[in-house]
């Protein structure tokens, strides 16, 4: 199990062009500079960047934990 601050189900933000997209951590794998996060994207939560639930795999340093909703 990789040592990381990311945990299953956490809300995260990832850059998408000029915007940030919100998703949830689905899987964490790899290690070091190749530590990767599979982020689950949902149409509504991602503000319709995707049109159906899907995933994207990104490097861990390209993701940040989302601040709690106001």
């Amino acid at each position: 199990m990789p040592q990381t601050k990311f945990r299953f189900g956490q809300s995260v933000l990832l850059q998408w062009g000029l915007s940030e997209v919100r998703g949830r951590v689905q899987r964490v794998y790899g290690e070091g500079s190749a530590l990767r996060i599979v982020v689950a994207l949902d149409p509504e939560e991602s503000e319709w960047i995707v049109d159906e639930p899907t995933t994207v795999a990104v490097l861990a340093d390209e993701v940040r934990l989302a601040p709690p909703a106001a």
Partner: protein
Amino acid sequence: MPSAALHAWKNDSAARLDELLKIHQEVAGAGRGRPWGTEQLNRSLFVALVAQFQSYSVALHDLAVDVHVDVAPAEQQALMRRLMTLGRALESKNPRTDHLGADFSKVGLALIKDLKAIGPASQARLRHLDLLIDFRNAIAHGNEAEISAMALARGIKPTKAAFVRYRGFLNQLAPTMDRTVSTQLASVLNIRAPW
């Protein structure tokens, strides 16, 4: 030189499968002729084998994405990584030939077509991969009728010997995939072979 994905398949994945085999040996003994009382353990070997091959396939796809990203303009790199991994079938589905083909098409490769073009042995390994995954699915879904039918009609049974045989097919397929992806990436991107 093998990729990091193949290195992990040959070492990390092999160690995990060997760990299960060791338990099998402790339960059943090393020799042949004690097939009773180990069927569920045998079945778990097939599930683990496919899981490890799925990890290898994902890792190889990640490396192919990395190669594309490395030669892309800095401004495009993050977006390219997202688009090439968006909806990747291997995140949620087995590494069947159709899912491998669809995912590697996103990095510009016709992986299955290229593997089939290598020759009859490579084609046979792909057929064995799909058969193995069908069998794994029957096991994972508790489909006893399908497990029996596959044993009768397609000759795959939940035995240690069959596990060893199919593991051997994957041990042959993995390096072929590794070389094919490297060669094709070099050709598509006009670069030296990345591994």
